[in-house]
């Protein structure tokens, strides 16, 4: 099929884009277009107006930000995937990119667009929640910061308001945390059947903090708090791994589709929790 008609506006600056968003309440931002145009071709969405931000210069940056990283709205997936700064400061994201899309799609697709699209099986929201990233939203009314945990609200639904643009993603520095990402999908680079992203902090052999975040098994990426509670307070031994895996499986309410039924997804979540926790524990400094 072909996309429905739309008005096309090209923004030359972020301010231009914000102005256009304010003046066109029926507009959507067009970044890489790797999800949006596919959905438009299938007529799953019919935006009346698109604001193309691809011509805005200087918003594809990946910069140091204190001990963390600041990523501009137009940073392409392949730039993020291959960034030495991100590998050093947010290796969880680098590891996740091993499972994200195919090379050609990553040439054009952007991290910011991917987050705003908020596909329930997307990998990057899980990484944002696991690392405690902050998303900067800007409109003509001003700028606000939203924590990743508060950003993802539902299937294709975020806390971004219609007149706001995601202008920057801020990833905190790693400090001593261990990390691991694992995914099960039908084909390498495809939509995930189940995803777990885990970060852990271990001090004197005792797990002090944990985030176990699932994607692909609910409306949006979310922490599995019962699994986190099962890990905190002692060493990461077999008993804690078993408890966390069981708690993770019990904390999700997955759907069934042609790729996998709910029971399979639940088993996958248990297995991925076990794998990521074990690997994250080994990576704690």
């Amino acid at each position, binding site marked *: 099929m072909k996309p429905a008609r739309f008005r096309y506006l090209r923004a030359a600056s972020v301010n231009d884009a914000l102005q256009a968003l304010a003046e066109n309440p029926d507009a959507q931002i067009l970044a890489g277009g790797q999800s949006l145009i596919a959905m438009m071709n299938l007529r799953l969405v019919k935006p009346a107006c698109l604001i193309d931000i691809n011509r805005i210069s200087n918003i594809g940056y990946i910069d140091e930000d204190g001990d963390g990283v600041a990523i501009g709205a137009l940073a392409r997936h392949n730039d993020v995937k291959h960034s030495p700064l991100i590998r050093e400061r947010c290796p969880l994201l680098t590891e996740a990119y091993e499972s994200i*899309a195919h090379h*050609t799609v990553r040439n054009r697709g952007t991290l910011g667009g991917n987050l705003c699209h908020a596909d329930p099986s997307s990998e990057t929201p899980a990484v944002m929640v696991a690392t405690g990233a902050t998303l900067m939203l800007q409109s003509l009314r001003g700028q606000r910061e939203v924590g990743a945990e508060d950003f993802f609200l539902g299937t294709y639904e975020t806390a971004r308001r219609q007149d706001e643009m995601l202008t920057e993603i801020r990833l905190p520095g790693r400090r001593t945390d261990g990390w691991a990402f694992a995914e099960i999908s039908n084909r390498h680079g495809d939509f995930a059947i189940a995803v777990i992203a885990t970060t852990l902090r271990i001090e004197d052999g005792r797990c002090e903090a944990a985030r176990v975040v699932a994607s692909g098994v609910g409306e949006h990426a979310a922490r599995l708090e019962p699994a986190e509670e099962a890990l905190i307070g002692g060493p990461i031994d077999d008993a804690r791994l078993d408890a966390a895996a069981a708690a993770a499986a019990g904390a999700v309410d997955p759907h069934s589709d042609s790729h996998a039924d709910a029971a399979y997804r639940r088993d996958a979540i248990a297995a991925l929790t076990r794998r990521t926790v074990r690997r994250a524990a080994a990576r704690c400094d």
Partner: protein
Amino acid sequence: MERETISVTVNGRAYERAVEPRRLLSDFLREDLRLTGTHVGCEHGVCGSCTVMMDGVTARSCLTFAVMADGAEIETIEGLGSVEAMHPVQQAFWEKHGLQCGFCTPGMLMTAVELLKANPDPSVDDIRDAISGNLCRCTGYQTIVESIQYAAKLMREDGP
């Protein structure tokens, strides 16, 4: 109907055309420019048949509006080589039977060219990873992988 005038260079030749904003780059190439070597399979970014080069890197032309390519340099399969003077990747696909029906071939070739530019001596795993976004329903991929390996060899021997 609202139209935008765009200037695009395709295979070294400059074109100026007025297009509807919803015109996909794939349809622009095939229907407006009559360059039908670029194939459209799934039209939602899954099959990779419509892969072209845009400013030196591969892009899904079905996931790009022609207006987004304004000012860009596009290379399609027609620009790769000719029957008389085949690109080494074309030569290799011919000799090693890297195609049967030929539908996925333009996308496979553009993807292979991008891979070999970055990695002149790819392993089988590198090749399989690179073409993982391109679907072929005939070959089982075996002969495609062999073709790309052979193309790499031809290009290394042919190189400066």
